[in-house]
């Protein structure tokens, strides 16, 4: 694989992973904001009214950075992956165009009302706007995931006489069960992040002894949603995603599990370090037979290992394996935290139990890590293919863009994103510092 392809892959991985940090928050927070806005639209509920304003500010910063870092992603297909775009554009351009038309417009136009129209429109229209922005962000996620799902498991296409790939059946692409299970998993993953953010900020207020009424509300709603979402992430959606991988991408499954040799009654590795030289999992801690059961529902089923395939078909094993284990490990911990919190909430003890409030506050970054790790499993595990079984990544990179150019722009993106990251942290921490009870500050009188 040439230097140019490696540079292109690093650039795409870096820009898309940075970008995705912000959609995680917007997808995850949107339902909370809509909920608070509808509660507020009935009058009376002051906490909900303050909450809808406060969380919209956090949402807006995430949205703005999500937009500006999202535009390069659409450009990147053409700039860095021109042969891929020329070959498959008739397929993947379709859902991407629909994302713009059906989702992105909805989000952007109605966000204008949320940010600037609070005092100009009725509480009802404001709540509708919050809902439509939420629907827009969820739809946007769908079209992106449907595009990715097609690259993972291409369906409904045919190859034209000039070698380009044409879409034969848009329904097959949009209603592919593979895509829908992946979408549900991704969406719930973002919802876990959103609920941990809401609960974590609430926990911070309670620990700091300020904004108590608001803090309690955030913690309560946050942990309830967190429990439901983190359970659904694992079952049924995570389980169904694994089943699809087992069926359509068995090499990826073997890499995820660090299984080098085909085994009857394959064990599930909890700990261990895959070594591609020695072709074994070093120092493993395993649960016997469980992988066979999870993959095939049968404790003695044969699971194919990596060595059943030519090593030119292997994805990068270590990265896929670790990312998968980080995701699953964190997912399990989220359920534990959320379940314990809900138990204490039910007993009426949560708001005064400081150790768990500390845990909730400090847990905030981890759903981000789990979400990103999940995408690493999906995308790195897809290698060496860009379209699974159809087109190799090595053949997909632009030939008229030199490695030097990509490295130059990569450095530029790194600098730009470092600045964006600093500004983001500055503003979000500052808004959290102001809190829901400092409604506006000097220059924003009249807006949110």
């Amino acid at each position, binding site marked *: 694989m040439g230097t140019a392809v490696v540079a292109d892959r690093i650039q795409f991985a870096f820009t898309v992973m940075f970008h995705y940090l912000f959609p995680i928050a917007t997808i995850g927070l949107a339902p909370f904001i809509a909920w608070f806005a509808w509660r507020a639209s009935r009058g009376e509920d002051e906490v909900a009214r303050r909450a809808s304003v406060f969380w919209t500010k956090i949402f*807006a*910063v995430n949205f*703005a950075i999500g*937009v*500006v*870092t999202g*535009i390069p992603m*659409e*450009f990147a*297909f*053409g*700039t860095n992956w*021109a042969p*891929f*775009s*020329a070959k*498959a*554009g*008739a397929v*993947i*351009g*379709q859902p*991407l*165009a*629909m994302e*713009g*038309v*059906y989702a*992105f*417009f*909805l989000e*952007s*136009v109605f966000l*204008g*009302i949320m*940010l*600037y*129209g609070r005092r*100009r*429109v009725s509480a009802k*229209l404001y709540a509708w706007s919050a809902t439509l922005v939420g629907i827009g962000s969820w739809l946007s996620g769908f079209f992106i995931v449907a595009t990715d799902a097609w690259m993972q498991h291409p369906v409904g296409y045919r190859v*034209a006489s000039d070698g*380009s790939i*044409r*879409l034969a059946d848009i329904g097959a692409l949009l209603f592919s069960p593979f895509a829908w299970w992946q979408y549900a998993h991704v969406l719930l993953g973002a919802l876990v992040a959103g609920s941990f953010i809401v609960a974590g900020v609430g926990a911070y207020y309670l620990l700091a002894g300020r904004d108590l009424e608001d803090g309690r509300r955030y913690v309560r709603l946050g942990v309830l949603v967190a429990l439901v979402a983190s359970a659904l992430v694992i079952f049924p959606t995570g389980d169904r995603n694994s089943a699809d991988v087992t069926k359509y991408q068995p090499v990826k499954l073997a890499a995820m599990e660090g299984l080098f040799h085909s085994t009857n009654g394959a064990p599930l590795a909890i700990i261990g370090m895959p070594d591609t030289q020695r072709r074994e999992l070093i120092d493993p801690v395993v649960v016997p037979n469980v992988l066979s059961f999870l993959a095939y529902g049968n404790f003695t089923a044969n699971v194919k290992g990596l060595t059943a395939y030519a090593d030119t078909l292997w994805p990068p094993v270590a990265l896929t394996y670790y990312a998968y284990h980080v995701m699953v490990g964190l997912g399990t911990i989220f359920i534990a935290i959320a379940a314990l919190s809900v138990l204490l909430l039910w007993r009426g003890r949560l708001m005064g139990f400081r150790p768990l409030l500390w845990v909730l506050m400090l847990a905030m970054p981890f759903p981000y890590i789990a979400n990103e790790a999940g995408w690493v499993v999906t995308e790195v595990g897809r290698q060496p293919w860009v379209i699974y079984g159809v087109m190799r990544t090595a053949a997909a990179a*632009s*030939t*008229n863009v030199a490695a030097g*150019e990509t490295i130059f*722009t990569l450095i*530029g993106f790194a600098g*730009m994103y470092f600045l*964006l990251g600093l*500004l983001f942290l500055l*503003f979000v921490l500052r808004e959290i510092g102001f809190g829901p009870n400092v409604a506006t*500050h*000097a*220059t*924003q009188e*009249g807006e949110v």
Partner: protein
Amino acid sequence: MNVAAFALLATAIAIYAVLDGYDLGVGAIAPFVARGSAQRAAAMESIGPFWNGNEVWLIVAGGLLFALFPRAYASAFSGFYLPFTTVLWLLMFRGISLELRNHFASELWHGFWDTAFTGASALLAVLFGVTLGNLVRGLPLDANGYFLGRFAFLLNPYALAVGIFALLALAQHGLAFLTLRTDGELAERSRRLLSRLWWGVLLLYCATTLASLALRSGVAVGAPMRSAPLVVLSLLALGGVHWFSRVGKPGLAFAASSLFLVSLVLAAASTMYPYLLPGFPAGSGGIDITNAGSGPVGLARTLALTLPGLLAVVLYSIFVIRRMRGCPRSTSEL
């Protein structure tokens, strides 16, 4: 079907030019008309609720190009690698400067982001013009339809002139918008600057139009005939900008300025037709609507799947703009 797809693409770009055109224009021209922090804030807020939605038209135009004409998308974006990356960085910088300026109540902070916004807006206007100029002029494509967009080739006098023209035309559009959507001193100063800037627009308009016709006349058969009505229309619209602005009809002046931009984009598209990326030197073929297309079935499906959505977008955008009427705060409210 190919023609309908080409028309849809040109329409999306024309709408983008009108909508994002005014906020780019306001960004580029604001320091020349808005005195003091209150007026600067008022200028920024006149576009605040809308710029994001406007910019989505660029994304959608990109998405449509991708879906309708994958080969043209692949060739253009990889060929213009560094220029397009520069556009991206400017778009990003511009986006955050508008969003972040209001987060600190500090003159220094506002000043920095306002200047960043102005610089990025002006450069973007020029770069869009340069890109359009190069598209009309043609690009040196290889046998597979790819090219290397070297700065030395792209920054030719013709394209640069179109770039400056684009900056002035969008600045005029921005002034027409400010005249319409703000009040008091700011609106009055915008109106006065508009009538002076107009002469510059007219001058460059004549120069670039003649140069374009000279460039393309021997190439695409019938190109001058196709674009002639649009050229006449654009001339009328440009006259309208001056006239309506003088007689104090800002709404009509803005409408005329919008029509001017639409007719310019469509005129450029009609001279390029049937090419999406004409070859250079003129007459050496290029990527056209047939060899770049995603096939008749694909094109028909993309049209069927996006047109209802675009219609809905237009409807709810109008709804939001009407609901937000009077939203830009006048300076007296601050």
